[in-house]
């Protein structure tokens, strides 16, 4: 590949402008850090940290940035289709944008947001001091960041993937896609996927092995339950993606024929493997959001969660069913009635446990004294909107009817109606809910609520018209259409809705700045008068989480202790063993980033050098002696006194 080809994407003015803005932004960040002498602080407190709370915050931070990248993609798509025969984007650019929009929103926004909240909350909810493997956790984060970086580099150097986020063969093969775009796809997902797999194992171990004394599995808060089940799904689903991506790389870069149309290859085998991972992936992002809603609804309805056991059972059933439905993504491939019938039935079955959960939330609120805080508003909006998404999902589940809906905007509207209330509202609710726990002050309610209304109204205005357009036959991924089709007016409505959502997200971010300046500081550690264990410690949470690990007798122990006037965090201080910080995860992920980058361009010298360097990090870790450090009692006393409000 010549130098000229390498930077070919820059010939497009919009990409050039985006590229320049990235460089200017990077220079501004570097200059700012140097001017305020914050490099040491950043390196010591954040980049090398193994603290689950800080890693969680970094996950959410990157997720918010990716939300804006993916959101700008979305606005560009809606702007392009707002009027017929629009020339804002050409077809190639439009293809790249819908591909990266999907990839970024699912893998580099929803996933890290969910995993970030799990990192922050799960160890606190089970009374642990950190996750089971803190160093591995840092590596997971940095691998995710490397993957996200790789995908974002693609659009200025070499070209973005452009075969859709599903990257179906043969379109994604070298015959129709000779550039490096889809190599980026394979490697960005591969690297961040390995990080996610390690997160899965890390959290399963944490939840099984590190719960506070007395906290039986059936006494865990619902968010922790949802995290456990999610991580089980991650552990079983992500290896399939890893293998599928490896086969994709072999096909694209080494001339094998796994997904070829001839020589014994099966092009649809990619679609099959992709969805064997892809459908459980939907539940990986949605179940933790269900957990968040369960916490928030119980807290703000001032009642215990209705049907705790059925909530757990329905999640276990969903986790099993999530592995049995994948072929409903390609009903139109041409397999027989029997296959479509089987997958149709399993798909519709998922509506049953999901319905159980919906009714449990409604019954939790029944007779409750509901407090309409920002997180509760998201939870309340989620229920009806998600139900529309779910019901249209059952419509799509009918294989024969699906021949009509397949690849139309009806499908696009359906999955946005599932994923935006089901995931985005969920993580935003969780973000508002747990913000004071991490930063020690609440986000402003007025700004939070106005952002909520912009997002919720904008969302419905943007996506409801797509149901109608889809039923009228408007296919997805079309970069333009003629005025005769009559698709123009509803597309314009949809664009205006998208703009409203954009305003909402800007308000959401402005709220961080505003609240940082003006919000009163929390002193209690329990601003919402909530139920679960994370509220029993101080806000912001000290490094060791709990000075004394509480003993648990029942579900919502903290709530009942509050009512009975017991202090569950009282007790004798002992010195606390904590893991040491390490810069190795960051450097190792950096080396793997370069390994993947050279692999994308098939520059083998670079691949070998950085591949060996990666193995070098593994060897270093094998022989490294790191026994962590102790926080002495005197220091605990001092920290507790400071956080307890005494001077």
């Amino acid at each position: 590949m010549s130098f000229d080809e390498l930077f070919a994407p820059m010939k497009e003015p919009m990409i050039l402008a985006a590229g320049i803005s990235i460089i200017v932004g990077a220079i501004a960040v570097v200059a700012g850090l140097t001017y305020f002498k914050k490099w040491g602080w950043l390196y010591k407190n954040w980049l090398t940290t193994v603290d689950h709370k800080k890693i969680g915050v970094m996950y959410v931070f990157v997720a918010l940035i990716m939300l804006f990248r993916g959101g700008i993609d979305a606005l560009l798509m809606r702007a392009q289709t707002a009027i017929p025969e629009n020339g804002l984007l050409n077809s190639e650019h439009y293809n790249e944008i819908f591909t990266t929009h999907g990839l970024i929103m699912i893998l580099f926004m929803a996933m890290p947001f969910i995993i970030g909240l799990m990192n922050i909350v799960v160890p606190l909810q089970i009374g642990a001091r950190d996750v089971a493997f803190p160093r591995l956790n840092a590596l997971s984060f940095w691998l995710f960041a490397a993957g996200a970086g790789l995908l974002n580099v693609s659009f200025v150097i070499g070209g973005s993937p452009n075969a859709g986020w599903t990257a179906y063969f043969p379109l994604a093969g070298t015959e129709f896609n000779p550039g490096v775009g889809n190599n980026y796809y394979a490697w960005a997902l591969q690297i961040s996927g390995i990080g996610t797999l390690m997160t899965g194992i890390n959290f399963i171990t944490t939840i099984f092995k590190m719960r506070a004394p007395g906290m039986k599995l059936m006494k865990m808060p619902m968010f922790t339950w949802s995290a456990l089940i999610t991580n089980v799904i991650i552990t079983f689903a992500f290896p399939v993606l890893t293998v599928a991506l490896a086969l994709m790389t072999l096909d694209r870069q080494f001339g094998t024929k796994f997904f070829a149309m001839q020589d014994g290859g099966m092009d649809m085998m990619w679609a099959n493997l992709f969805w064997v991972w892809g459908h459980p992936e939907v539940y990986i992002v949605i179940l933790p959001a269900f957990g968040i809603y369960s916490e928030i609804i119980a807290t703000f309805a001032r009642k215990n969660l209705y049907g705790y056991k059925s909530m757990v059972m329905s999640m276990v059933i969903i986790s099993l069913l999530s592995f049995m439905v994948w072929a409903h993504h390609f009903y139109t491939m041409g397999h027989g009635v029997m296959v479509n019938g089987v997958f149709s039935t399993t798909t519709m079955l998922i509506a049953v446990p999901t319905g159980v959960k919906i009714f449990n939330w409604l019954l939790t609120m029944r007779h409750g004294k509901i407090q309409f805080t920002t997180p509760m508003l998201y939870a309340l909006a989620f229920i009806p909107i998600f139900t529309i998404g779910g019901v249209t999902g059952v419509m799509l589940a009918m294989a024969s009817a699906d021949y009509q809906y397949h690849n139309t905007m009806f499908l696009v509207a359906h999955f946005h109606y599932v994923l935006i209330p089901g995931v985005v509202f969920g993580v935003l609710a969780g973000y508002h809910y747990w913000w004071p726990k991490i930063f020690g002050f609440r986000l402003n309610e007025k700004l939070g609520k106005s952002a909520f209304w912009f997002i919720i109204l904008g969302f419905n205005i943007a996506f409801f018209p797509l149901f109608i357009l889809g039923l009228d036959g408007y296919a997805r991924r079309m970069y333009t259409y003629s005025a005769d089709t009559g698709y123009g007016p509803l597309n314009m409505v949809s664009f205006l809705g998208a703009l409203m959502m954009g305003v909402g997200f800007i308000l959401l971010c402005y709220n961080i700045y505003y609240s940082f300046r003006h919000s009163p500081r929390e002193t209690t550690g329990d601003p919402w008068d909530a139920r679960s264990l994370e509220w029993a410690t101080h806000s912001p949470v000290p490094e060791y989480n709990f000075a004394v690990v509480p003993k648990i007798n029942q579900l919502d122990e903290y709530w009942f202790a509050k009512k009975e006037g017991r202090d569950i965090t009282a007790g004798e201080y002992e010195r606390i063993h904590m893991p040491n910080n390490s810069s190795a995860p960051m450097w190792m992920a950096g080396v793997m980033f370069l390994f993947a980058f050279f692999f994308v361009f098939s520059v083998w010298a670079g691949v070998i050098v950085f591949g060996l360097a990666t193995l070098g990090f593994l060897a270093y870790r094998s022989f490294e002696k790191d026994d962590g450090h102790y926080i002495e009692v005197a220091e605990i006393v001092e920290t507790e006194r400071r956080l307890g409000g005494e001077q």
Partner: protein
Amino acid sequence: MKELFPKEHVLGFVGSLLLTLAALTVIMFKGMSNGLAMTILLITAAAQALVQLILFMHIGETDDKKSLYVTIIYAVVVGLITVFGTLLAMVWGY
């Protein structure tokens, strides 16, 4: 020094390499019958899984047999659904 030597890991490493080589014979020797090839692949795959589980993951060293069995059953069920579901969707029902 003897007890510090990671005997199991080295054994597992060598074992998994040998099993991979054995599986490779299926494509290295042309003209092998399909039945024989599949037999070799299935046996080496099962042996490979056992090597990983026993020598690397120390599956026998836990006291909590119940969670062990639940995990194995879940894994086997998901694995079988994936394999036979794929065969159903891509070969038998196509």
